[in-house]
């Protein structure tokens, strides 16, 4: 079996990927049996690693595409699943937004408008 490449996988449909995944896993199963019975030889034993990594690649691609699609689905919505939200740090997530920080009392607004910070210059 040829080496599975991620770039080739990304074009495929999800059910195709699923089928490939099951095929790979069955192959891995037979390889493992071969390992125990001592039938294979060095080549077959080496193939186990390739198959394992191929399975990993298929899983990566499926997961990445589903996540991407979900992100585009939830884009702009108010309530997103927690793993699609910004991670940053816990403290940063709890900080006030810039808008919230800029809120001032009406009285304060008026005062700032009426009496702003003046700059003076001394005439030379």
């Amino acid at each position: 079996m040829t080496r599975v490449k991620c770039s080739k996988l990304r074009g495929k449909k999800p059910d195709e990927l699923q089928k490939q995944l099951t095929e790979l896993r069955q192959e891995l199963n037979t390889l493992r049996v071969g390992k125990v019975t001592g039938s294979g030889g060095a080549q077959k034993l080496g193939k186990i690693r390739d198959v394992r990594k191929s399975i990993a690649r298929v899983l990566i691609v499926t997961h990445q595409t589903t996540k991407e699609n979900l992100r585009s689905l939830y884009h702009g919505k108010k309530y997103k699943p927690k793993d699609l939200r910004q991670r940053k740090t816990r403290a940063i997530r709890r900080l006030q937004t810039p808008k919230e920080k800029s809120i001032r009392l009406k009285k304060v607004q008026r005062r700032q408008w009426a009496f702003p910070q003046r700059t003076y210059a001394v005439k030379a």
Partner: protein
Amino acid sequence: MRVCFFHLLYQIRLDIYLHLFSMGPKKETKDAAAPAKKKETTTAAATASAKKTTKTTTTTTTKVVTKERKEKVKSTALKAKQRVVRGNRLTRNRKVHLKPTFRRPFTLRLQRQPKYPRRSVPKRNRLDHFAIIKYPLTTESAMKKIEDNNTLVFIVNIRANKPMIQQAVKKMYDVEAEKVNTLIRPDGEKKAYVRLKADHDALDVANRIGII
């Protein structure tokens, strides 16, 4: 005494208002069900009457009574009437408790209606049938089991239990298991003895899998 006077006041106020607002082109019913409709027909007459009454008392200004004011006054008048009819004290039917203990009554329990799923992608099952059965054993004692007892011996994921193993074997090799016995080996792996049903032959299945 006081109560009587209060009632009297109510009555007087009631009569005045209801008289005022039921005045119109020959209307008998004074129900609150259609105040708006009545209002439209009687506003002219009412304003006229109001104006008339105010005019008789005060000669200078004519008071303009707005629609909202009229509705408010009417509703208060009706409430007063109701109070008079049923009495000022509102009696409540209180529950009789026959036992000394009070147990919390059943309250409404709503189902969850989440605004968003907490996880975007549900967790995939890591212990599926590929992961449960690792490989079959091909030791001498295992071979003996295949021939004599119609059983297959597998090394199995340690987190799998007997029903899981039975299902996995069924899915992977299309064989029904009569029973499954498990043990955990000293090296930490789980060994499963899967006795097949009488209509399956363990030897054939073993050939099919690849263990001979």
